[in-house]
């Protein structure tokens, strides 16, 4: 069976499921995508816009190569790809097996749901009949009851049942006799005996006579349901479709917290005008209720004052949610910004929050935009809501406490709750059935250092199944999971669909093109190594370039700080070094590159001075360096044969990493006991902490971050500070550790560490920019003075150690990025094609990036982006030949005047002047067939099949002359 095409089951058709499916499909594997609801798109089909673009952009997920295999349409209209079989409204029935050989059975909800599984309950006791009927009906089973065996036989004669639950001891005919008689009428009837006594003997006897099982009274409703569900599943399993797959990706997502059952302090469902953020999203949408207008859901009057409440079913022990849901802050920032900018009628947009979690690369700046637009952010938790005064029914009074302790009140028309993400019933059931390790809250716990891997080999996870996730992390994680599935399929010897069997009807189609079969990975940190290994493991050559003399990057200093990271680093380094497909080039830099994208010839030159090599390359960013003329091959550095080694590669992965930013403190920057976070980590690791008198440590978060100059949150510093604080508290219990913070950025499950630190006695002091605690340092040591916002008192502490969390500075130079047609974003990170939908790619999908030159993140995120980038690389490299889309642009050279207007017009850098023929050419893999070149070309030389002048003119003519 070596010729078998690899196939992966993807469970869940949300964003993660779609991303993973597309990656696999693009790599040439087959995908079976199961989705319980009636459409793919998941939550995102309800969100019109995302931050930080305030637009949609979901279609950018679609593959850019071999576009003929899929429908070129908005994902809201549906998804279709030759290699993906999509089954919506479908339930997973069973899944068994091992990597390379999983058996899956699944059933369309239209082919017999529970309503096709009628149940007959036979008992002489009314209360038993009634309660069983109630429990089972609630779950969707049609239930009939009989109070005697005789009546049961009548009912059985009239209609067919799938299940009969019968009491054993009944007046008249007993249950065992009924069993025999019923089986005569309907041999395939599943019969379960019920007995008031633990009369196991009788029940076992009954089982010999054909009963399936028995239940002992009094019943636990769950036990009854489980029993009937089992029978139902076995019964429908016969109708179910069966398939065999090599790997499984679980992308079933999470569910939103429901604010109304149980304690409902915000009166959701009771107070008019209290809505969830998802409902508000529909109100904002022109396609939602109210259409173009933002109106109150009950009164229909225009809404002018809106409040957002954060942490509803998040960070709340009372709702069993000790974790943060990661995404709700940004959803509210987006909604408030949109409401304020789209509707001038909105005079008050106010977000009530505890910590505004604008973690990551683009969020904080987006929140500042919202502030500028007039959104009010109030650090307060509103405890509850009561309906408005009777006279003005729809005004909701919101009461909160400002930091000084004053009670404030405002009236709002609308209160938008931001409910958290919780594991759903499907996830719990699946995890239990498949014996996946879960965390305390029911999310699947990924294996350390293997993002997306579960405790079961061959079953991978992505998206909300491993904890609350935003789109960006979900999409990255989905690609990483796709890589894992590809690895399983490759090691099972599976093939990919190579040549589309479609006959070439039009001779216009360009011939197939191939990439150079190899990858260049720049940067030998953990991101680069992980990407290199993953690509090489799939059988492709990798050149790994590292400017220093060793591999490991930042993980070298971090290895003792992250449990298990030391041996992980060692293993990875050894694996990279031993891999026969990886060529390691240490003390090497990338000098320049030639050739076209996908057929790069890149020159590597040795780094002479290690001291220079250790400084980040960012310093080059501002230095002008002659750039290759756009559209022509890169310049050669000198005449004759250039020095260095030339490598040919079809993809490039930028993994140059970054470093801790230098502190910029208004006080003496080198005072006694002032450390950066990294320096302090090293001191901790070397046990170099002075343990004289009770230790006093002050940690400053956001030093130079989240403010002009470095507008992003580095996402790693808060968790690192917590880790260091906990370690100090563990090693020196009498120490005093104070963390000065703006917003503790502990999204998702890392919230638990924050709680742990508070428990351990770490003191947290919030401050606002402009009101930073003062640090004074002299020879005797440091003193920190501040005003505690809650106590309202001036406070002071001597500090033996002051630790500055300065954040991450990316180490990517603009020159290097531009060498491959990519660029830097406003903060100096790799400029992603789309931060949400194409997070590890440049606009040219052959240029990839991962690790902290892509975006700030911890080890797990770095590994996820590395594996995501590797997935993209592998899926490109595994195609021997690409057959460009039939809509690829062509050049009628006879008309072309080489004016190059089209080169500038093409958004994908697909057009260039071939230096040898001096003619204009199109890179068929980059071209997306948009037709912009054709519109731009003044001489009619640029043509796109079906989108050129003549057919368009015909179309216009036809449009105006239709009947």
């Amino acid at each position, binding site marked *: 069976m070596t010729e078998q095409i690899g196939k992966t089951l993807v469970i869940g058709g949300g964003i993660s499921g779609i991303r993973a499916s597309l990656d696999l499909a693009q790599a040439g594997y087959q995908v079976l995508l199961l989705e319980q609801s009636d459409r793919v798109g998941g939550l995102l089909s309800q969100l*019109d*816009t995302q931050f930080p*673009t*305030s*637009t*949609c*952009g979901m*279609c*950018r997920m679609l593959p850019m190569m071999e576009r003929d295999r899929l429908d*070129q*349409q*908005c994902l*809201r*209209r549906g998804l279709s790809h030759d290699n993906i079989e999509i089954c919506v409204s479908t339930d997973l029935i069973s899944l068994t097996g091992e990597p390379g050989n999983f058996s899956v059975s699944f059933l369309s909800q239209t082919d017999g749901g529970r309503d096709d599984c009628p149940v007959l309950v036979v008992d002489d006791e009314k209360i038993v009949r009634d309660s069983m009927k109630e429990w089972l009906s609630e779950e969707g089973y049609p239930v009939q009851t009989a109070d005697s065996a005789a009546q049961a036989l009548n009912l059985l004669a009239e209609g067919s049942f799938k299940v009969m639950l019968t009491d054993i001891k009944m007046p008249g005919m007993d249950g065992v006799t009924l069993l025999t008689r019923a089986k005569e009428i309907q041999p395939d009837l599943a019969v379960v005996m019920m007995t008031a006594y633990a009369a196991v003997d009788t029940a076992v006897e009954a089982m010999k006579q054909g009963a399936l099982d028995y239940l002992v009274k009094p019943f636990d409703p769950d036990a009854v349901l489980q029993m009937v569900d089992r029978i139902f599943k076995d019964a429908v399993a016969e109708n179910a479709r069966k398939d065999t797959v090599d790997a499984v990706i679980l992308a079933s997502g999470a569910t939103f917290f429901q604010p109304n059952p149980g304690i409902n302090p915000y009166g959701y469902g009771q107070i008019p005008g209290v809505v969830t953020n998802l409902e508000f999203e529909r109100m904002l*949408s*022109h*396609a939602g209720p109210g*259409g*173009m207008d933002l109106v109150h859901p009950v009164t229909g009057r225009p809404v002018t004052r809106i409040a957002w409440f954060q942490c509803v079913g998040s960070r709340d022990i009372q709702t069993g949610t000790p974790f943060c849901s990661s995404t709700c802050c940004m959803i509210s920032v987006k909604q408030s910004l949109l409401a304020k900018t789209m509707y001038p009628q909105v005079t008050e947009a106010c977000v009530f929050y505890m910590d505004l979690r604008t973690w990551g690369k683009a969020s904080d700046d987006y929140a500042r935009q919202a502030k500028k637009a007039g959104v009010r952010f109030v650090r307060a938790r509103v405890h509850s809501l009561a309906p408005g005064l009777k006279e003005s029914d729809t005004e909701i009074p919101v009461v909160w406490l400002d930091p000084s302790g004053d009670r404030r009140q405002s009236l709002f028309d609308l209160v938008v709750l931001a409910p958290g993400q919780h594991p759903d019933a499907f996830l719990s059931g699946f995890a239990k059935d498949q014996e996946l390790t879960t965390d305390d809250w029911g999310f699947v716990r990924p294996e350390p250092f293997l993002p997306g891997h579960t405790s079961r080999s061959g079953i991978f996870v992505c998206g909300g199944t491993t904890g609350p996730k935003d789109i960006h992390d979900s999409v990255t994680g989905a690609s990483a999971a796709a890589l894992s599935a590809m690895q399983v399929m490759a090691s099972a010897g599976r093939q990919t669909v190579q040549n589309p069997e479609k006959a070439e009807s039009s001779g216009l189609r360009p011939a197939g093109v191939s990439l150079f079969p190899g990858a260049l990975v720049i940067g030998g940190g953990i991101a680069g190594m992980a990407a290199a290994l993953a690509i090489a493991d799939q059988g492709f050559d990798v050149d790994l370039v590292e400017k220093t003399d060793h591999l490991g990057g930042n993980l070298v200093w971090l290895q003792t700080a992250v449990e298990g990271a030391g041996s992980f680093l060692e293993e990875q380094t050894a694996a990279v070094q031993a891999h026969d497909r990886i060529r390691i080039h240490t003390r090497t830099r990338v000098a320049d590159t030639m050739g076209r994208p996908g057929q790069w010839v890149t020159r590597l030159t040795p780094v002479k001075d290690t001291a220079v090599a250790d400084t980040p390359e960012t310093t080059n960013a501002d230095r002008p360096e002659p750039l290759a003329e756009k559209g022509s091959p890169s310049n050669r550095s000198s005449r004759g044969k250039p020095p260095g080694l030339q490598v040919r590669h079809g993809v490039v992965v930028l993994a140059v990493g970054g470093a801790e930013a230098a502190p910029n403190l208004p006080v003496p920057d080198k005072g006694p006991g002032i450390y950066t976070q990294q320096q302090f980590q090293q001191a901790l690791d070397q046990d170099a902490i002075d343990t004289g008198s009770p230790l006093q440590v002050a940690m400053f978060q956001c030093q130079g971050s989240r403010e002009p100059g470095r507008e992003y949150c580095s996402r790693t510093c808060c968790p690192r500070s917590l880790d260091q604080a906990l370690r100090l508290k563990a090693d020196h219990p009498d120490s005093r550790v104070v963390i000065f913070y703006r917003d503790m950025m502990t999204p998702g499950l890392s919230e638990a560490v924050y709680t742990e630190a508070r428990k351990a006695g770490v003191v947290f002091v919030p401050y606002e920019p402009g009101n930073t605690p003062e640090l004074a340092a002299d020879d005797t040591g440091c003193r920190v003075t501040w005003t505690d916002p809650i106590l309202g008192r001036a406070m002071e502490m001597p500090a033996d150690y002051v630790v500055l969390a300065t954040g991450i500075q990316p180490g990517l130079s603009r020159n290097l990025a531009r060498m491959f047609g990519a660029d830097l974003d406003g903060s100096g990170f790799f400029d992603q094609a789309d931060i949400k939908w194409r997070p590890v790619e440049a*606009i040219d999908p052959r240029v990839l990036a991962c690790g902290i030159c892509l975006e700030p993140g911890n080890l797990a995120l770095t590994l996820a982006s590395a594996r995501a980038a590797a997935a993209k690389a592998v899926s490109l490299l595994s195609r021997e030949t690409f057959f460009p889309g039939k*809509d690829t642009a062509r050049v009628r050279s006879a008309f072309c005047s080489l004016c190059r207007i089209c080169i500038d*017009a093409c*958004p*994908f850098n697909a057009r260039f002047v071939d230096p040898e023929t001096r003619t204009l050419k199109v890179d068929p893999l980059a071209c*997306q*067939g*948009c*037709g*912009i070149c*054709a*519109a*731009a070309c003044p001489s009619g030389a640029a043509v*796109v099949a*079906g*989108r050129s*002048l003549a*057919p*368009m*003119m*015909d*179309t*216009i*003519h*036809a*449009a*105006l*002359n*239709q*009947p």
Partner: protein
Amino acid sequence: MTQTVMEPEQESPSNTPSLNADAFEPVAVAFVCNWCTYTAADLAGTSRLTYPDNVRLVRVMCTGMVDPQYVIKAFLEGADAVLVSGCHPGDCHYINGNYKARRRIKLLKQILPRFGIDAERLRLTWIGASDGIEFAKTMTRFVEEIKGLGPCQARLQPVI
């Protein structure tokens, strides 16, 4: 109300444009981008929203591919107005095609009066994929406004 979307590949039916003197029913061409406005039009259709059928939709992959010649052609073929509608700024599937369209339409609006065509007869809008309602409203409003402008004389002029 059903709308025929013209695909470039489609066979062209020949018929005369309706020009009725007493009850002026304008004819317009809307170049809609495949990713956003076309989806919105589709959504409007499936949501059973009504809008006047005076507007003939021509689906293009991107508003950035709308050659000025298409617009002129439409006017010459008898369109009383032309609408170009694409993705919201920042949302273009082809990154910046809609910005290119914006620049082009601005220029065209300056040129059109020289052809005797009121610049008001050329419009550019952004209608996102989920904006079915906005699509229908825009179309309705658009047609109303053309009615106010009266028939376009461009076609009647023999030479340009």
